[in-house]
């Protein structure tokens, strides 16, 4: 796989490789670079917070994922429901009714910066911190099914649930709500927003606002002493600068725009490009509280007018894949057996005429100036123009876009999202349940004002029979599309590139940026 290719590539470049009869063994036993300082760059101006219970930014991930851990850990470099490994908990078991879960914690784990040993108190503190009204974690809902968290002794934690959940441990991984923070550090007033204290292979040393975050190796790491000495995460919002710096050897790894041309160009430059999933699925939501989108014929017409293939061609075949259902492929409960509205401009025109818009239609909607939203919307704008729909785009800055779409002023909303755990639950709760309708006090992200499957969505939440749960979720998907409430478009992979000299120690299949472990190293 990739690593072998990359080694062959690098020696080929440096020495002429096998041409000079250099033994293969040498290529397979790469030497370490004398400097084990890793320099990477993410495409942001600054972090917002590296408090793991609040962090949502891509640029923060290399810090939070290197510093913090969960009771369970994902397989290295992969987000999946299976293959979870023991992390801060060495083992766990549940009561037969799946309502009570007991975790046996790893002993001898020390917090960074001398904050003492890791104990059950930290686990209780962390989970309560996420669940509590204060400080108000955005991931609070994830753990809403927990009744109580108790420390039975310094190395044993028992969690009781309100309802049985066979997949509960999947929530206690090293992600968002599952990250464990140090009770003592928080109580002593350490500001986790910029000064993370974790148990992971790397600990924070310096944060320079709007410039960089530096981590250094944690020699006491329970998984073994890391190879890398330091990781410097630089904030560089300009993609060209990042790319040039990578190609010029000033950086080892960068975030790149998920575009075919960038991917091809970096591969030509002999860099390793990694495309990961699960990634954001982009959906076009039709706001049915507004005219003329309250008319199903108009929604169907716009769906028929949208050419997914052209969008995919625009984005690039390697970085995007089509989506036809409101729940992305790969999620538990996904079905591709849904009503479809294939690209058909004539049908679109006929439907528009039928709805009384034969003379044309003008829609005005805000769009974010963010590079993930504005370009695909411009392609859709042009496609709709061909059937006589004039979509006026008002470009606003990103926070304004988020505010406007939540204030229910946008007739058409493009939105990219990815929700862990990879099931129908959060997706449907947030995008298609009536309580999440935008413009209401409990608003989340139901932009279409769909309320036609509340019963199924609620029933699926507590359904213990996996097959019945899937069936409910499949019904939800069909109902959404029967009403043409939204148009699922595509999933766009995360894209990143690295020097062949960066040996991650694992295959990078998931995450929005590279993850680094104790095995990660820089080759000579």
């Amino acid at each position: 796989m990739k690593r072998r290719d990359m080694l062959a590539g690098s020696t080929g470049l440096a020495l002429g490789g096998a041409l000079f009869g250099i033994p293969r063994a040498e290529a397979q036993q790469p030497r370490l670079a004398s400097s084990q300082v890793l320099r990477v760059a993410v495409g942001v101006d600054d972090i917002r917070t590296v408090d793991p219970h609040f962090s949502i930014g891509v640029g923060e991930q290399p810090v939070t994922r290197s510093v913090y851990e969960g009771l369970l850990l994902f397989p290295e470099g992969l987000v999946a429901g299976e293959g979870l490994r023991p992390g801060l908990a060495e083992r766990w078991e549940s009561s037969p009714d799946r309502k009570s879960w007991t975790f046996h914690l790893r002993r001898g784990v020390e917090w960074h910066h001398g904050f003492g040993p890791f104990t059950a108190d930290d686990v209780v503190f962390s989970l309560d911190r996420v669940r509590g009204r204060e400080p108000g974690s955005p991931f609070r809902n994830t753990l809403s099914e927990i009744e109580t968290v108790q420390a039975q002794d310094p190395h044993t934690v028992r969690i009781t649930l309100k309802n049985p959940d066979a997949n509960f441990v999947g929530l206690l991984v090293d992600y968002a709500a599952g990250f464990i923070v140090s009770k003592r550090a928080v109580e002593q007033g350490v500001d986790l927003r910029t000064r993370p204290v974790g148990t992971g292979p790397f600990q924070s040393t310096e944060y320079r606002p709007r410039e960089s975050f530096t981590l250094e190796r944690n020699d006491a790491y329970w998984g073994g002493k890391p190879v890398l000495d330091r990781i410097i995460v630089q904030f560089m919002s300009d993609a060209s600068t990042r790319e040039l710096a990578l190609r010029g050897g000033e950086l080892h790894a960068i975030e790149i725009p998920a575009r075919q041309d960038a991917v091809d160009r970096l591969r030509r430059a002999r860099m390793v490009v990694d495309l990961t999933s699960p990634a954001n699925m982009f959906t076009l939501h039709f706001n049915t509280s507004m005219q003329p989108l309250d008319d199903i014929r108009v929604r169907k017409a716009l769906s028929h007018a949208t050419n997914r293939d052209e969008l995919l061609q625009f984005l690039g075949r390697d970085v995007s894949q089509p989506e036809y259902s409101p729940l992305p492929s790969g999620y538990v409960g996904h079905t591709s057996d849904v009503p479809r509205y294939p690209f058909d401009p004539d049908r679109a025109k006929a439907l528009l005429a039928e709805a009384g818009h034969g003379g044309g239609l003008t829609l005005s909607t805000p769009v974010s100036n963010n590079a993930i939203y504005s370009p695909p919307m411009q392609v859709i704008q042009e496609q709709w123009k061909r059937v006589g729909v004039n979509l006026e785009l008002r470009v606003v800055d990103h926070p304004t876009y988020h505010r406007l779409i939540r204030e229910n002023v946008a007739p058409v909303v493009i939105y990219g999202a990815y929700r862990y755990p990879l099931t129908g639950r959060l997706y449907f709760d947030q995008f298609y349940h009536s309580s999440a309708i935008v413009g209401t006090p409990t608003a989340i992200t139901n932009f279409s004002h769909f309320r036609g499957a509340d019963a199924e969505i609620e029933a699926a939440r507590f359904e213990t029979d996996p097959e019945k749960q899937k069936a409910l979720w499949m019904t939800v998907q069909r109902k959404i599309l029967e009403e043409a409430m939204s148009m699922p478009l595509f999933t766009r992979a995360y894209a990143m590139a690295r020097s062949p000299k960066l040996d991650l120690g694992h295959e990078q299949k998931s995450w929005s940026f590279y993850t680094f472990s104790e095995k990660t190293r820089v080759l000579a």
Partner: protein
Amino acid sequence: MSDAAALREPELEPVAEAAAETPPSIGAALLRTLRRDPAAAIGSGFIVLFALVALLAPWIAPYDPTAQHIIRASEPPSAAFWLGTDEFGRDLLSRIIHGARPALLIGVLSVCVSIAIGVPIGMLAGYHLGWVDRAVGWVVDIMLALPSLLLALMVVALLGASTLVLVLAIGISHVPIFVRLARGSTLVVRNLEYVSQARSFGASDLHILRRHVLPNILGPLIIMATLSIAGAIREEASLSFLGLGVQPPHPSWGNLIRDGVANILDAPHLAILPGIALTLAVLAFNMVGDSLRDMLDPRDLTASDAKKR
């Protein structure tokens, strides 16, 4: 911001004074300037050319500037697409040609806004002096102490970007220059003999301002307006470059540069060519304004005069 530089010209106030001493016939001066100064002739030629391109864009441009040909995206220059295509497969040449429209439109309109607000206020301040003058002075100082690009960013975040918002944001940020200009010129004119005479004959303030003061400051006003258009075109491009100017899919030189920069490694011409069009347009207005200034103010004023208040 950089663009305000053209507008905080130190030479301007004295220009007004000099002009006021010899009431000019602006038309004659213009003609004389054109005849004598090649820079003015070249500059005006370019302005006429840009105006024609903007006016006739739909007929000159080989393609609809917003029509996408995704299949032919990011192509290098060819017989079909003389300057190549962008990431949407849109013809760059057509987009540069159509980019002249927002540049000229926003450039001219925003200066109209600055004049409409700044000149009456400046004239009043210069005519009445006293507390009006002091109050105006404060407001101008405050506006000059705020970096106009940051201010415009906030305005655009507040109101969203549209041609109207751009015109207002840029126009208002240039108001102080016109206030100062009108005030300085009025100060000089109000003490001229024939104005004092008119006043003693009982002419109303409005009459005096319109009949005696305004014609006298027309010359410097036109110079300033010409230079201000140059500044406004740059400012529009800067805002578009930050992604908050002219709205897609419509081209503007600033957002063409912005889009081009994203592809600068593969296709630098996408950013470089619109930048040349932008620079030439700004240059044309600067050349004309500069020549007019030389002509109206033959004694070449010094900066120290400008700073003495």
